[in-house]
């Protein structure tokens, strides 16, 4: 066994939340005197086994342990680090999690210390910048990116090279590059993980973008709810400045570029380009009409290129490896990879990067490891609240911009929520619409009022007060909101409703016709009762009931009084005999 040289602990936000800090301190304290380095790293991707610890040996082998607590860390320390034998039973079980992944954006994430510019450079960091400044003209950089086929990873999929060439054509001496890190989709954490785990990659991408379009100023627009990401980016900027990658005359060239941070104040609509610009300018984040496109007239009227975190993170890789290497992955029109945040009812929730064109089924069942608890795979919500719900029967659909759009969803920024048979599609549609409705800025009538009326109808349906006509109104209104809204928020807000209506109409009908919720989620449509033959009269449910709806039956069993029951389900949770049934 070769000697252990390094121990890595995943200290991204979710690692910390899972309890990685005590593990890190324990290891750091106990290894301080030895020739083993203990370092914090970003997200390792395997969120399902957090906290994670990776042990690296002198010949480069890497063992990932998880979930690890202090007690298990002690064993890893004794047996593996000191003893030289891997602790087999504590290794994180990846079960095919990595087999189909291709890591471009995430190549360093979870393996390098994000606070160390040296580690980033040791892995080829800032080489792309060097090459660009020494050997390439801005025009050549744009051509390289255009040929690679890179498209915007924020959702809409606009070709990045084309966007850059629009801005490059403008004669204005003042131009801006904005990194859109306003990751507001509920259920998405790709951008946060990249910024926390490999911030320099995004910085390098921004500098290259600045060189390509002729900008001298960059702004990272990041959510204030991501304090760790803000901290990491701030440090990365300072370190890059100290090394001369940022500032005046970068690497002795005539190109100067600086980057500042703007913290977003919490508005989903600010992910939209023109709303983001308004927000940076200090106004309400409301979108405006396009054209003119921001690449022509953006921030304070100057040409502005706005790229998503993941888009920019791809740039240094493409320059270093060439456009052909990038274009090898993916489908005809969607090149490269896409990072997804897998969550919901899936065994391997975590951060994954897959080549475009992998099917939804491969993504959920192989990379994601399938559904836990022996439940059935029902649907995926792809693209966040602007995306759509695709049923399990579409598992053969490849993940690329065009195929997803064809089926009513969008690529989106990469949130992917898996749902099983216990998820009610009507209720999920209501949930997403509730989100977009609240986040609508109010500028366009259909988005402001239309979504409100749609939400009222959906609320009525889940409460059991819906009528069959409601479904037609939903369809009609949904189409109108899509057609008559100015920005992406309104144009996509009805997607979850329209796709669930398209693929799960029978569930809607069960709600409005039979007043029944097939997934047993919608409270108003449920009836709880106790099976007398299963009840052992332990009265745990009676004690748990918050409204005193459970009383002694005519014999040795308890009875739920339906008129008092508030359907909170607590009796069902506490019953040790499974005697409480729900219909």
């Amino acid at each position, binding site marked *: 066994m070769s000697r252990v040289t390094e121990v890595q602990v995943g200290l991204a936000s979710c690692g*910390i939340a899972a309890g990685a800090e005590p593990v890190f301190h324990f290891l750091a304290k106990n290894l301080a005197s030895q020739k083993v380095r203990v370092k914090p790293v970003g997200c390792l991707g395997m969120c399902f086994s957090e906290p994670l610890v990776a042990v690296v040996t002198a010949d480069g082998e890497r063992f990932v342990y998880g979930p690890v607590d202090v007690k298990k860390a002690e064993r890893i320390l004794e047996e593996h680090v000191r003893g030289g034998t891997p602790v087999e039973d504590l290794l994180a079980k990846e079960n095919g999690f990595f087999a189909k992944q291709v890591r471009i954006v995430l190549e360093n994430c979870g393996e390098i210390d994000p606070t160390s510019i040296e580690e980033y450079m040791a892995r080829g960091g800032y080489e792309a910048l060097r090459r660009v400044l020494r050997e390439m003209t801005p025009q050549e950089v744009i051509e390289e990116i255009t040929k690679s086929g890179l498209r915007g990873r924020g959702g809409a999929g606009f070709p990045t090279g084309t966007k850059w060439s629009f801005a490059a054509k403008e004669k204005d001496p003042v131009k801006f590059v904005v990194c859109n890190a306003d990751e507001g989709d*509920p259920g*998405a954490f790709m951008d946060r993980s990249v910024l926390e785990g490999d911030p320099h990659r995004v910085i390098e991408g921004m500098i290259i973008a600045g060189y390509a379009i002729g900008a001298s100023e960059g702004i990272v627009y990041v959510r204030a709810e991501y304090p760790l990401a803000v901290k990491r980016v701030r440090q990365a900027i300072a370190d890059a400045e100290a090394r001369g990658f940022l500032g005046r005359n970068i690497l002795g060239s005539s190109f100067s570029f600086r980057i500042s941070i703007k913290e977003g104040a919490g508005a989903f609509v600010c992910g939209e380009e023109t709303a983001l610009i308004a*927000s940076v300018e200090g106004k309400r984040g409301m979108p405006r009409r396009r054209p003119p496109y921001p690449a022509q007239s953006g921030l304070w009227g100057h040409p502005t290129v706005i790229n998503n975190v993941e888009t920019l993170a791809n740039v240094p890789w493409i320059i270093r490896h060439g456009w052909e290497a990038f274009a090898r992955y993916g489908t005809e029109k969607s090149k490269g990879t896409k990072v997804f945040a897998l969550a919901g009812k899936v065994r391997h929730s975590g951060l994954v990067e897959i080549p475009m064109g992998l099917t939804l089924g491969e993504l959920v069942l192989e990379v994601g490891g399938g559904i836990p608890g022996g439940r059935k795979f029902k649907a995926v*919500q792809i693209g966040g609240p602007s995306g759509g719900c695709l049923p399990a029967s579409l598992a053969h659909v490849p993940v690329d911009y065009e195929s997803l759009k064809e089926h009513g969803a969008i690529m989106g920024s990469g949130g992917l929520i898996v749902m099983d048979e216990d998820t009610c599609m009507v209720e999920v549609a209501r949930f997403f619409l509730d989100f977009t409705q609240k986040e609508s800025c109010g500028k366009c009538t259909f988005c402001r009022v239309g979504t409100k009326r749609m939400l009222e109808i959906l609320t009525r349906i889940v409460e059991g007060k819906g009528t069959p006509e409601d479904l037609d109104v939903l369809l009609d209104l949904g189409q109108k909101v899509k057609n008559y809204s100015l920005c992406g928020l309104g144009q996509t807000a009805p997607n979850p409703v329209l796709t669930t209506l398209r693929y799960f109409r029978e569930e809607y009908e069960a709600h409005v016709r039979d007043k029944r919720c097939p997934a047993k989620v919608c409270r108003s449509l449920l009836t709880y009762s106790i099976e007398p033959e299963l009840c052992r009269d332990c009265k745990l449910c009676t004690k748990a009931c918050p409204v005193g709806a459970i009383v002694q039956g005519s014999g040795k069993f308890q009875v739920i009084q339906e008129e008092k029951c508030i359907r909170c389900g607590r009796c069902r949770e506490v019953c040790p005999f499974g005697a409480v049934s729900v219909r």
Partner: protein
Amino acid sequence: MSTKKSRTVTKRSWFKEFKRFPRHESSVIPLLQLVQEREGYVPPDVVRAISRYTGVPEAQICGVATFYAQFRFQPRGKHVIRLCQGTACHVQGADAILEHLKEKLSVEEGGTTEDGLFTLEVVRCLGCCSLAPVMMIDEHTYGRLTRRAVDKVLAEYRKEEK
């Protein structure tokens, strides 16, 4: 942070703190963020100070402040509970946790407990989806919540207080 005691500050001393920002419209949001970080909320009289400093009308600043979810206009409790209602948390049963928190604390969303110890807020996605359901109390994140786990955490904070 929000736990700090609110100070009575005059306009002049706010101006001192504002100094590192340009006197320009683009400073409105960063200034509101600075004030909230110091005070825990945005007091009405500070809006006037920001207006004088940036030259942006007070009405417009109020418009901006109320547009963004981040800004609050009431002081908060000593500890702020932020329960995640993102998609992943939602499908993992965050609703039941919200109900439970409301009941345990006898407050509605956005409310502060009578003893001023907790403010209950609902947020959209803390980005820890794999630990759903999740809540944050101040800077600490608690994942894989159950009703019982919530009780335990709340009890710890209450104990600390005594």
